[in-house]
């Protein structure tokens, strides 16, 4: 494997790569603003310039020193190359570029949302100078409302053009452009054409400074208080990798987590801003018969009893379990196992996920490469549910067929897990019209919970862990981000205890059980580690 020496440290790289990318892949930090692995190279910020030597192709023992400073983002890495990013010349350039970038920057970090995760701040400490020598008036540029989700603070902008390239190369919509020239230039949208594509929120992520800010997050939290939990998108069948960023039990934002095969660096706005249901309109009371509040221990026994009574009265095959494609595979397994332990012919039904039109594919208009797909199916785990249903086999049917069975009067009771986001309740409600013994596990009040014999408040995906299986059968685990809302439990915990298992339910216990009982795919799946944010700075005592 080719190797390269960066500031005396040996790194290896594979294939054709630029110096900067090879360094980033090997965990060596070189300063950069305009470079982004997912976008084309413009080499315009000029802070990544380094000095380099490479072996003479005719005589590999001799090194040829490149006389100029070279942009590491644009120069291919060569085997045997020596790169100096801390040489006096490279350091002088870094210092100069930092000074240039800051002369017209308002330095309003105390009121800037980006403070704490700002490349300008980090590099200023690491590569810049402590005092400004700029005595003139700073250029003043306006704040602009450029789209439904994004604000642009032009005065903080360093013109790296990442956002412009994103709208041209990833979303293919081209709303953003550079207007004006030289020090007067600004990023802007065309009149009457706001930045409103379904991927618009990504420009905020790739902005290395505080120029593009998320209206949703604006002034709500300082980023250094946020904790990041790796998770999986709960809104679409793509299985997009995300970080849930939260503090003190409250989610503040969702950020994309890099996954080369699924979502790359991006997520859609639907995923980014869809988490509100976690904190809005939640169910937190256990209700029997529409009125009476009970405790969890009684409620679980009640649920169990409801099903047993139905089987005793109407015989096997008189109960049903409606699964939600928003639940984790482990939870569905436990639920199915529980109901089949009571009624061996219990009906297993999947509440079909909402499908909105067709998959929306984004392409790079020049190369034609697919950059992002927004899946039409708006639930994370249909494949998982289908797998569980087929694993248990026996009595299964479509939700729409359930109505006829209920009307036939052969049914005694049903347990229903409702989707946490609105959209599919009506189908469940219609299918189960007339059934009295209805137990509902839901995170929010709906018409179904209103008339159910037993309502159990459950927690949402952010409050539990488990695995989702995306549309292509990729099984991915995620971790719990925040504590469950008071008095709610995850459905896994409910069925875990109903199955008589000991201890607190943990999703890996569910996976081990599944592995033992004929679903070996799941046993080895582990939750991704809680990654620490990349530490850019090496603090040295002043």
């Amino acid at each position, binding site marked *: 494997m080719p190797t390269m020496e960066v500031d005396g440290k040996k790194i290896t790289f594979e294939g054709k790569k630029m110096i900067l990318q090879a360094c980033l892949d090997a965990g060596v930090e070189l300063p950069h603003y305009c470079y982004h692995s997912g976008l084309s190279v413009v080499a315009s910020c000029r802070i990544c310039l380094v000095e380099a030597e490479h072996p003479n192709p005719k005589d590999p023992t001799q090194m040829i020193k490149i006389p100029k400073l070279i942009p590491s983002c644009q120069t291919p890495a060569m085997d045997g190359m020596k790169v100096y990013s801390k040489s006096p010349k490279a350091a002088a350039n870094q210092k100069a570029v930092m000074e240039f970038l800051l002369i017209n920057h308002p330095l309003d970090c105390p009121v800037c949302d980006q403070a704490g995760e700002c490349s300008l701040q980090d590099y200023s400490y690491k590569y810049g100078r402590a005092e400004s020598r700029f005595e*003139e008036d700073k250029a003043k540029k306006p704040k602009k409302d450029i789209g439904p989700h994004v604000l642009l603070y032009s005065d903080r902008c360093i*013109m790296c053009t990442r956002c412009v390239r994103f709208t041209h190369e990833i979303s293919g919509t081209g709303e953003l452009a550079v207007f004006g020239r030289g020090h007067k230039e600004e990023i802007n949208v065309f009149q009457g054409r706001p930045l409103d594509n379904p991927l618009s929120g990504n420009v905020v992520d790739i902005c290395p400074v505080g120029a593009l800010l998320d209206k949703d997050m604006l002034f709500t939290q300082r980023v250094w208080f946020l904790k990041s939990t790796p998770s999986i998108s709960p809104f679409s069948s793509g299985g997009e990798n995300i970080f849930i960023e939260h503090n003190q039990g409250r989610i503040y934002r969702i950020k994309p987590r890099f996954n080369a095969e699924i979502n790359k660096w991006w997520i859609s706005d639907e995923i980014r801003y869809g988490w509100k249901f976690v904190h809005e309109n939640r169910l937190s009371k256990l209700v029997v018969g529409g009125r009476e509040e009970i405790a969890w221990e009684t409620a679980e026994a009640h649920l169990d009893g409801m099903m047993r009574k139905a089987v005793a009265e109407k015989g096997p095959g008189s109960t049903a379990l409606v699964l939600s494609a928003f639940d984790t595979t482990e939870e569905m397994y436990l639920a199915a196992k529980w109901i089949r332990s009571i009624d061996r012919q219990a009906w297993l039904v999947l509440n079909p996920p909402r499908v909105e039109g067709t998959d929306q594919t984004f392409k790079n208009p020049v190369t034609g490469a697919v950059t992002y797909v927004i899946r039409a199916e708006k639930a994370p785990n249909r494949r998982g549910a289908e797998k569980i249903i087929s694993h248990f086999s026996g009595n299964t049917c479509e939700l729409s067929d359930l109505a006829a069975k209920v009307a036939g009067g052969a049914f005694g009771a049903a347990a229903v897990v409702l989707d946490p986001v609105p959209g599919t309740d009506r189908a469940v409600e219609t299918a189960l019209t007339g059934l009295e013994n209805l137990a509902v596990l839901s995170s929010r009040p709906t018409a179904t919970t209103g008339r159910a014999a037993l309502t159990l408040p459950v927690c949402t995906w952010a409050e539990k862990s488990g695995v989702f299986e995306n549309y292509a059968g990729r099984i991915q685990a995620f971790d719990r981000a925040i504590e469950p809302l008071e008095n709610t439990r995850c459905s896994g915990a409910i069925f875990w205890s109903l199955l008589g298992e000991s201890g607190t339910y943990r999703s890996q216990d569910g996976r081990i059980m599944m592995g033992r009982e004929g679903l070996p795919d799941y046993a080895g799946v582990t939750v991704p580690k809680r990654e620490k944010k990349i530490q850019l700075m090496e603090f040295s005592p002043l």
Partner: protein
Amino acid sequence: MAYAGPVLLKRIPDDPAQRKLYRYADYIATGGYASLKKVLAMLPEDVIKLVVDSGLRGRGGAGFPCGTKWTFLPKDLFPRYLAVNFDESEPGTFKDRYLIDHDPHILLEGIAIAAFANKISTSYIYIRGEYHHEAKLLEAALAEAYEHGIFGQKHPGTDIVSHCYVHRGAGAYICGEETGLLESLEGKRGWPRIKPPFPAVAGAFAKPTIINNVETLACLPAIVEHGAAWFKTMGTPSSSGPKLFGVSGHVNKPGVFEEELGIKMSTLIEKYAGGVKGGKYRAAIPGGVSMGVLGTDQYNAELDFDIGRKYNVLGLGTAGVIVMNDKTDLVVMLRNIVRFFAHESCGQCTPCREGTAWMHKILNRIVDGFGQPQDFDMLAELCLTMGAMPGTTICGLADGANWAVKTFLQKFPEDFKSRLKSRQVQGVAGAGVA
């Protein structure tokens, strides 16, 4: 050294009253397109060899050998394009306009020769936006050329049809930079490209492209007519041939004059431009403001492509000489130059975008009387970090600004230092500025 009368300006007499526009018929009557006819009977390789042998160097500013540039084209990549750089926007430069104003067909003949030699399918004349008149002249001349089969025909022995178009820019200096020009030609923002790939491999529309200046191409008919050896009799060993010099500023008779390369600036000013006006010679810019300034003791500098090495300027540039007499305020002059660069910086690279504007603000302050002693060093340092450190920017605009400021500071330090006073000395008025 054997310059025997005008080559490029042979159809344009000195006396303004006798100058006229040479249309196709007039051009033919004075021996026009004879060289093209001669070339079409030759092998393309021989034409390239002839241009290499002539030692013709690019007249647009950088002085890169024209024939060598042609040999960079990949052997079997087609189509190939020619972009003619008529963006002439360097301050003090007006030679190409003067030539086209009277003799547009000399350029078209040059283009036709270059297109044949390099098997080029389409030539684009990228003309500066403000040159309305010249764009119309060229359009008319092109129509005549098409009518007479100069363009729109197959190159002999190939299936490549030669076409030529006039493309008007929108008046940005940066579009005179060759890759900025290509971007603009493609309909994009005129932001210079990162290299590689070089234009010879992937230029306009990602196809192999040659970019030549108007005057460079206008030299071709004469080279074909008289041969490489004749061309080399003019000029110096490293800078052969005749050159158009545009003289402006404090001279009695400003204008475009043709002479061989390597003549003394004093000769140019005294023999052709009627001597310095309004005082004694103090300083001169050899070829467009980005080349820097020649000092008072460099009056006799030889104007050729070696001038940079010998006289501490960036180079000959476009040979648009701006003469300044001893009553010129050089600080104000430099401020005007830097104002130009700050205005024309494309804004792509950080050092140039911020550095040129910063220098302009400092110079504004100095001109307004609020300069401080540290400003001199600040300007010098900005020159270094912005342009002088090789590789800090994508194109040469920052380096041009750096050379202009650097040479003014080096050659006329007292003009600046006498304007700089510490804040204590400036008193209350100065204290309020920063």
